């Protein structure tokens, strides 16, 4: 490919040229929709970061330029100071999409003001939640939007080097990203003197090797440095002491993908989407017993009812909804009474759980909540890094109890024991994993106590999912 560096002055002309090429091949649109996973936009969806996914070929940077790509970076470099970029993101109200909803601009500010050079930027693409692939879809359908977001973030915090950490279970994501990074280098959109400015930003990809806990920011940095992925003590926060003991800013893939849109369309536009204190959109992967499972992007403030019944077509086979479980293996479940709750970081916190990264599991009346709790505990126990005793042993103990209960060998005291360990873990575990591990169990016990008692005391599974021993069934009959 003959390449010529893109500069602020020829960017628009190039975009125009590629747009004409792009228009001529729009026939193949469906080809890039990631195994047909991305459906056409539903009326109740708001697509910001997914607006070009499926339309453009992720393997060609020209296609991203054709839809106006890298204009935001050009605008930031030519017209804005790093401080004003941070200010724009602050006024937009962007919050971290990695789970906790921490204000992004504040984190950038901390890193920018932190002494020590060089500073690093890390994009967290570990996405370990089973049953969720929002980041994967975004990286595979529009890799350059994340690269552009990272370049703007790096400019804002004053970092000259960035890394994207990709989950090794997604080889096609790694391949797409590597191609995208290479093409961005070829056009001078990464590297030295980007777009003819004096801003330099080098970018690399780091591979994970299959560990859920490496999504935790401390463990992530350890893993990048070639070590066991065990969380670090906080504080010092990464913004003070991160990679190679230098100031490091860690953001989720989706957080960074929002940045170009904010810079291009302005903070006021962005703040107008979603709710006050929680602006913008969020992608969710809806799985389980719905008619149309898959990925969606909605504005904050959309209710769970709209997501499940309108966008995803309701419960499969016309059955009754039993519970909604949010945020994967460490999230809480909610009974159907919460259907009209608007989705936001704060509303979730108000009911005692976290919004998390974006997994929504819909469960119908045939679901055994005890088995589900056991399943999640099995996951957490298997992924516990083992650094701290409470999480390592607490999850093991909880799993033993839940397994016993599911096999018809439980006792009433087991439920007290689960609660006791469950209250203890959040207080004493070293990182967020052990702290949140009991959440699926405790929330299920809170809302479906009778089901746990049926298993533990009467040794029956009300929905006939768990295979109880014959004698237990007979005794209960």
């Amino acid at each position: 490919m003959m390449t010529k560096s893109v500069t602020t002055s020829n960017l628009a002309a190039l975009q125009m040229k590629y747009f004409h090429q792009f228009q001529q091949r729009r026939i193949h649109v469906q080809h890039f929709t990631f195994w047909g996973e991305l459906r056409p936009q539903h009326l109740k969806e708001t697509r910001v970061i997914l607006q070009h996914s499926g339309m453009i070929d992720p393997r060609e940077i020209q296609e991203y330029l054709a839809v106006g790509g890298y204009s935001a970076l050009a605008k930031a470099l030519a017209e804005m100071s790093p401080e004003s970029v941070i200010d724009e993101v602050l006024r937009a109200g962007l919050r971290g999409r990695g789970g906790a909803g921490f204000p992004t601009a504040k984190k950038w500010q901390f890193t920018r003001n932190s002494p020590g050079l060089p500073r690093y930027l890390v994009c967290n693409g570990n996405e370990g939640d089973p049953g969720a692939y929002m980041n994967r879809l975004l990286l595979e359908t529009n890799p350059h939007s994340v690269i552009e977001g990272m370049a703007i973030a790096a400019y804002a915090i004053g970092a000259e080097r960035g890394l994207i950490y990709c989950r090794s279970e997604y080889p096609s994501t790694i391949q797409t990203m590597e191609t995208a990074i290479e093409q961005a280098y070829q056009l001078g959109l990464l590297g030295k003197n980007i777009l003819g400015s004096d801003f330099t930003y080098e970018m690399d990809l780091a591979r994970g090797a299959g560990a859920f806990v490496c999504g935790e920011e401390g463990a992530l940095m350890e893993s990048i440095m070639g070590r066991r992925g065990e969380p670090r003590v906080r504080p010092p926060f990464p913004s003070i002491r991160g990679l190679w003991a230098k100031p490091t800013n860690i953001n989720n893939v989706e957080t960074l993908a929002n940045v170009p849109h904010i810079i291009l369309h302005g903070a006021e536009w962005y703040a107008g989407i979603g709710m006050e204190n929680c602006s913008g959109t969020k992608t969710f992967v809806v799985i389980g017993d719905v008619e149309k499972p898959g990925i969606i992007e909605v504005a904050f403030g959309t209710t769970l009812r709209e997501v499940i019944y309108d966008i995803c077509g309701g419960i499969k086979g016309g059955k009754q909804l039993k519970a909604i479980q949010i945020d994967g293996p460490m999230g809480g479940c909610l009974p159907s009474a919460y259907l009209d709750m608007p989705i936001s970081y704060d509303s979730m916190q108000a009911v005692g759980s976290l919004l998390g990264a974006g997994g929504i599991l819909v469960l119908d009346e045939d679901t055994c909540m005890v088995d589900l709790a056991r399943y999640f505990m099995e996951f957490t126990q298997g992924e516990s890094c083992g650094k701290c005793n409470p999480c390592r042993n607490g999850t093991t103990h909880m799993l033993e109890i839940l397994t016993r209960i599911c096999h018809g060998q439980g006792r009433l005291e087991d439920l007290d024991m689960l609660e006791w360990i469950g209250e203890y873990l959040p207080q004493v575990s070293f990182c967020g994993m052990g702290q949140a591990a009991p959440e699926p169990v405790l929330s299920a016990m809170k809302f479906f106590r009778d089901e746990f008692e049926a298993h533990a005391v009467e040794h029956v599974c009300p929905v006939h999912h768990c295979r109880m021993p014959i004698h237990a069934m007979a005794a209960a009959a």
Partner: protein
Amino acid sequence: MIKQTLTPAFPSDDKRWRIVETAMKRSNYQADALIETLHAVQEAFGFVDESAMQFVSARLNLPASKVYGVATFYNLFQMKPAGEHTLSVCTGTACHVKGNDQIVEFLREEYGLNPGDTTPDGKLSFIGARCVGACGLAPVLIFDGKIVGKLSVDEMKQKIREWVNDES
């Protein structure tokens, strides 16, 4: 001269050690490159055994315990060679609730395989994957890298039986 005697020899004259060597060289034999190096071993040989760990430890100047610690920490690195054919069953949430829990049970009962096991004749490995990122297709099975989704439990059992018969 001294440098040469200190340089650890390749564990065998297998050409694939050169690939591993190149991977380490690319990162200047930095300890930070341990995971990338283990990736190279895993890709070249299909598993990371003790001789590989000893070699990497000597070459990157790291204690063998550190290498062992890292290699065993990450799910991707396998200590034993995989079977000729691999069946991955996704055990992620979407697939679990759509019936893959019963498939795990089925493989245990019918073939005596637990996740991570390989048949004694080395023909078939069974892997329990943690969500392969295709949840919309749940429940997902992967036969030697080929994704099959959206089947009922009975259809999956049927498919596994056929595949095992064809491949053995």
